[in-house]
């Protein structure tokens, strides 16, 4: 067996163009015992890219707790798996598509949706929900409108067509994302527990089958692009963005799920970042096997593609699977029914090597384990963020009447209604969306049962910037609260860690701080991490994004009859506030939007209180005492009650206790671990008594009813005015785009 010669000769320049350091190249030489050819160099380049190898973060990711009795599969597979009862499991993951979405927002976002869907159905799960955590630059930045427009259209264009409801997510704006927007997509699927599929190649002689779209020249080196900083010249990378075809994806979902019923799949893996390379290496590595591929058999979209291009293409809507020998015919019949291209392109071997043949020559021959399993791991130097001083709550900061402050907050880009976005997404297809976008968490019914999955994405990047450790804890705690507020028992999270360049100690410090804070919260709340993704190098010309570790939470509602929403259905309910109110304004949205300041320590998270308060809420919901519930987060109590009024179509009156040090702090402070409950008169006393027994702080703060929101003795805010302000900003902002 002869190897095609290195052509062209590998020079230091070629190595550098592939994003590999001289030390990494030395390592390649040692692994191979010779110089690689260009195909092999390309393989190492993508497999050892930050995007695929997690080389800067892996050391720290191991700090996450990943186990619990209900966890079926933790990190390391295509997606995480948790038990949801009745013989079913939830399969979920979140992933970034930041760099492509900035360059080409429609296709970048669309293919982000496609990729995460494949991660979920490749495990045998039918995707049932999508969520999107979006972070854009300052609204006044010239690119922002265009990016919002393209990203939202791309997510809708893909998700609507494949027929998976987009049920929730977030969308916020900050100038730190001007040059690097974040598009993080989460997908949740449901599978039978005894029918989960993994990506472990095994069985010498078993056929390796390619199915789905043909391979083209799109997306070559996408994973490498996602592992480098941006500069002004980034526009030139547009050709590295892939193009999505949701119709093919829909066929692929149906065909794969149909084939999975036949028990002939040994292993299955989608071709995501780094395409055929990563899918084949990862399957071989997980199974401790080797693979031989005949690249002449790969279905190609265009003639004249080289082995290098075939291996590095990131064409979308492709899957790789290992079948049981002799079952190829059954599989082909299913794929033909769905009109999909498929081909046997290789076999499993026991050599532990990846051997690629093309036109009668071996064009690559590398050991699998060192490429996928033994990629470099860096312990990069880190530096903590400077500590910030807490800001004392004080009425001196009330520069505006509180009603004006509330209106400004509720109409601000971060807190305004995102209806303009979610009405472009089909959030009801599949007929199981029980809580639609706009509440604390979305709830989808587990099809054919009376159970529900509560789903939310959360992160408060300004807290993470102010104090990475506390911000990390807060992201997990808020996720947990959002699920609890619907009556769901939080099960596990996926995450997507978005940061700047890990080669800068300050950024590395943010990454480590956030991970450690998240890990602490996950442990304290029994809320393990089962899957995740890291996106580094989110910076342009040296300006990094805010540290943004997005958390995607999944919780279980065992009886949808006991579910709670943020809308109260009746007047004259008592509003009860749970949790301690110190009036924390440092790093709050009030601070930012009303006072134009971003200083101060973020609110501390007391994990013991979080758990105590959340478990108390769940017990009260189970006891049937809670008519509506909302967690308190951005904008504090006043914003929460305003959101509840809008969802209910009914007003409320809020009084302010005389003993609070600051009215602004009481109304807009962002103290953690808090919930606002609407309770019937007769349930108030038992609830307050139970709270006292549980050591949970609780007090009456208002009453529902009427057509206006009344803050203490200030002029009432009519629901019409509240709604107009809340609904107004985003459509107004986007409409202005048409005039440009």
């Amino acid at each position, binding site marked *: 067996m002869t190897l095609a010669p290195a052509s062209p000769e590998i020079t230091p320049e070629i190595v550098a163009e592939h994003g590999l350091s001289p030390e990494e190249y030395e390592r390649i030489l040692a692994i191979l015992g010779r110089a690689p050819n260009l195909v092999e160099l390309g393989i190492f380049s993508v497999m050892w890219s930050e995007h695929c190898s997690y080389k800067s973060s892996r050391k720290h990711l191991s700090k996450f707790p990943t186990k619990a009795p209900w966890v079926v599969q933790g990190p390391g597979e295509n997606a995480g798996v948790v038990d949801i009862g009745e013989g079913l499991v939830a399969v979920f993951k979140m992933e970034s598509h930041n760099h492509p979405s900035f360059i080409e927002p429609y296709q970048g976002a669309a293919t982000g949706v496609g990729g995460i869907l494949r991660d979920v159905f490749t495990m045998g799960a039918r995707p049932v929900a999508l969520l999107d955590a979006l972070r854009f630059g300052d609204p006044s930045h010239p690119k922002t409108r265009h990016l919002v427009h393209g990203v939202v259209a791309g997510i809708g264009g893909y998700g609507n067509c494949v027929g998976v409801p987009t049920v929730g997510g977030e969308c916020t704006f900050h100038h730190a994302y001007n040059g690097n927007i974040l598009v993080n997509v989460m997908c949740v699927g449901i599978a039978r527990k005894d029918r989960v599929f993994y990506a472990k190649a095994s069985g010498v002689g078993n056929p390796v089958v390619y199915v789905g779209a043909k391979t083209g020249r799109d997306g070559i080196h996408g994973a490498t692009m996602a592992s480098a900083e941006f500069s002004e010249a980034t526009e030139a990378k547009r050709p590295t963005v892939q193009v999505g075809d949701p119709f093919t994806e829909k066929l692929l979902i149906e065909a794969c799920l149909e084939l999975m019923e036949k028990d002939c799949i040994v292993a299955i893996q989608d071709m995501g970042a780094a395409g055929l390379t990563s899918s084949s290496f990862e399957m071989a590595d997980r199974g401790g096997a080797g693979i031989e591929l005949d690249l002449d058999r790969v279905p190609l979209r265009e003639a004249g593609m080289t082995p290098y291009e075939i291996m590095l293409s990131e064409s979308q809507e492709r899957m790789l699977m290992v079948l049981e020998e002799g079952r190829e015919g059954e599989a082909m019949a299913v794929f033909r029914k769905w009109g999909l291209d498929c081909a046997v392109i290789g076999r499993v071997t026991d050599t532990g090597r990846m051997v690629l043949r093309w036109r009668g020559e071996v064009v690559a021959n590398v050991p699998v384990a060192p490429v996928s399993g033994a990629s470099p791991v860096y312990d990069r130097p880190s530096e903590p963020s400077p500590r910030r001083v807490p800001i004392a709550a004080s009425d001196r900061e009330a520069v505006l009447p509180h009603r004006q402050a509330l209106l400004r907050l509720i109409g601000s880009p971060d807190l305004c209604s995102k209806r303009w976005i979610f*009405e472009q997404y089909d959030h*009801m*297809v599949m007929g199981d969306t029980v809580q639609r976008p706009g509440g604390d968490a979305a709830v989808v019914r587990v099809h054919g049962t009376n159970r529900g999955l509560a789903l939310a994405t959360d992160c408060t990047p300004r807290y993470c910037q102010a104090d990475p450790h506390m911000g990390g804890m807060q992201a997990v705690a808020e996720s947990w609260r959002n699920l609890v507020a619907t009556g769901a028992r939080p099960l596990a999270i996926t995450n997507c860690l978005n940061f700047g360049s890990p080669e800068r100690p300050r950024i590395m410090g943010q990454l480590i701080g956030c991970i450690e804070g998240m890990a602490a919260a996950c442990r304290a709340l029994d809320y393990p991490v089962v899957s995740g993704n890291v996106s580094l190098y989110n910076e342009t010309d040296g300006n990094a994004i805010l540290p943004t570790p997005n958390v995607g939470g999944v919780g279980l509602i065992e009886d949808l009859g006991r579910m709670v929403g943020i809308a109260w259905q009746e007047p004259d309910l008592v509003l009860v506030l749970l949790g301690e109110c110190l009036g924390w304004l440092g790093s709050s949205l009030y601070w930012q939007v009303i006072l134009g300041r971003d200083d101060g320590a973020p609110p501390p998270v007391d994990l013991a209180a979080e758990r105590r308060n959340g478990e108390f809420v769940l017990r009260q919901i189970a006891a049937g005492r809670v008519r509506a519930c909302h967690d308190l987060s951005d904008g504090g109590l006043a914003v929460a009650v305003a959101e509840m009024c809008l969802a209910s179509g009914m007003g409320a009156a809020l009084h302010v206790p005389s003993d609070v040090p600051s009215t602004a702090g009481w109304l807009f402070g962002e103290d953690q671990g808090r919930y606002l409950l609407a309770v019937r008169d007769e349930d108030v006393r038992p609830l307050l008594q139970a709270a006292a027994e549980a050591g949970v702080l609780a007090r009456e703060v208002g009453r529902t009813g009427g057509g206006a929101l009344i803050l203490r003795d200030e002029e009432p805010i009519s629901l019409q005015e509240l709604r107009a302000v809340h609904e107004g900003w985003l459509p107004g902002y986007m409409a202005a785009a048409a005039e440009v």
Partner: protein
Amino acid sequence: MRAAVITFPGSNCDRDLAVAMEAVFGRPVQRVWHQQAELPPLDVIGVPGGFSYGDYLRCGAMAARSPVMREVIRRAAEGVAVIGICNGFQILTEAGLLPGALVRNAGLKFVCRPVELEVATTASVFTKGYGLHERIVLPVAHHDGNYVIDTDGLKRLQDEDRVAFRYRDNPNGSTDDIAGVLGGPKRNVLGLMPHPERAIEPLLGGSDGRALFQSLLEAFG
């Protein structure tokens, strides 16, 4: 009651429609693949929503020419009840079973939200369970739901009382606020953009779609 729902490549409301029909009809609904050229005896045929063939040509144009549609056209002529929802409505217009066409929403964006409708006629097997001018709420979810028809065609629809539903607050620019129209020799073909199958239980936000399936059940038992 013998009912079937057709699946085209890219259909994505086929399961939802079958589930809703089964919930109201109380018996199994047959699932039919688009390449099936023959159909068993049926009372009701459902043409579901979705993105058949990716909507890469005109919406519904490819599906309208699939083998099963030849049979659906024949059955419609015999008086079998045919209901096309969303993409199904587009397919029925492309197949010539209903007049007019559905083009891009006036707002140019996909729109998914509950809308208020007025029941414009109760003279059909689909709508006789509603009150005349009754206001109901059903969700829409489409990019191409803007119903267009020429003046003569519109006059004919109006004269023959074939507008089934009208939008109260037109979400897509449809001519005469039309949300659904009737056709067929016995007013036995209905196409509509809103999704009655998404509104059959309060847990999902409403049950105003139930009466449509209930009407069919009463007609065919």
